[in-house]
C-alpha cells in the first residue's frame, strides 16, 4: 500500500471512481420500507427521481483517498469535513478528487490538509470539503518548502 513519501502543496491525489449501485446502497444503509435510500416509491414520493445514496458514502470514499495517501496518519488523528451539495442517485458514477492545500508543522512530522470534491458523471459537484492527517515526512522534507 503506497503511503506518500513526498508531499507538495498543489499535488493532486490519484482520483477514485465509485459506482454506488442499489445493491451497495442496500448493504450500506440497510433495506427498509419508507426509506429514500432503499424504497424507490418512497423516494419518488419525497420528490426524488429514484433512490439516493447516503451522503455518508461519500465520506467513506474521501476517507479511502486519505488513508491511501497518509495511512496511519489519517486513521489516528485525521479529520474530515464534507458538505453534501447535490443528491447522488443509485447508479451514478462518482469521481473523488483531492489536492494538497497546505502542509504545516505538527510535532516532528507535518499536518497535511487536502481539499476534496466529488463529481458525478455529469460533472456536477455532489460533495466538497477538506481532510487533514499527519504526514509521515519531516516538514523540512516537503517538496517546494
Amino acid at each position: 500500500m503506497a503511503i506518500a513519501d513526498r508531499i507538495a502543496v498543489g499535488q493532486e491525489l490519484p482520483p477514485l471512481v465509485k459506482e454506488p449501485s442499489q445493491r451497495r446502497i442496500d448493504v450500506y444503509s440497510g433495506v427498509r420500507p419508507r426509506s429514500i435510500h432503499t424504497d424507490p416509491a418512497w423516494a419518488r414520493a419525497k420528490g426524488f427521481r429514484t433512490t439516493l445514496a447516503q451522503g455518508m458514502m461519500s465520506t467513506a470514499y474521501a476517507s479511502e483517498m486519505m488513508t491511501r495517501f497518509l495511512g496511519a496518519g489519517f486513521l489516528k488523528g485525521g479529520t474530515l469535513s464534507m458538505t453534501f451539495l447535490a443528491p447522488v442517485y443509485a447508479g451514478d458514477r462518482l469521481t473523488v478528487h483531492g489536492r494538497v492545500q497546505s502542509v504545516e508543522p505538527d510535532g516532528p512530522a507535518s499536518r497535511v490538509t487536502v481539499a476534496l470534491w466529488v463529481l458525478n458523471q455529469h460533472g456536477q459537484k455532489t460533495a466538497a470539503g477538506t481532510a487533514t492527517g499527519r504526514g509521515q515526512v519531516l516538514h523540512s522534507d516537503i517538496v517546494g518548502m
Partner: protein
Amino acid sequence: MTEFPVLTYERLTIGEEFVSDTHLVTPEDIEAYAYAVEDDHPWYSGPSPFGGPVAHPTLMANQALHLRHGKYVVHAGLHAKMHFEFLEPVRPGMRVRSRGRVIDKYVRRGRQYMVTEYVTEDEHGTVLVRGQFTQMLIPEGTRHGDR
C-alpha cells in the same frame, strides 16, 4: 410497546441528548462495509500499523447519524454536513456506542436543519471518533422538490 413521537422541528429541543445501543464490531461488519463502499484496503482484514485489523474510519458513522431514530419516528431527511475527528481506530471485537446532543436548529431558505455533536466510544469509555453533523428535516406531507 413504546410509541415514539414523530420528529418535527418544533418538537426538537436544543440540548436534548441521544444514545445508541451498543454494537459489537465484527469482521463481517467490516467485510460488508468494504463491499458497500468498494474499499478493501488490506489493513481492514489483516495486519495494520495498529497491530491487527482495523475498521474503516467511517464504519460507525451511521450509528451516530441514526441516533435520533432512538427517540423519534423520522419521516425523511437529508444529510447536509459531516465533520469527523478520528481519534483511535475502531477494531473488530470492540463494543461501541454513540452519544449525541442537539446543539443547534435553524431554518434557512425555508428548510429546517438540526445540528448534532456526538462521540463514538468503546466499552471502556475511550472516545474513538468525535464529530458533528447537520441534517435537513423533510416535514411529513411535503416533498423535497416542493421548495
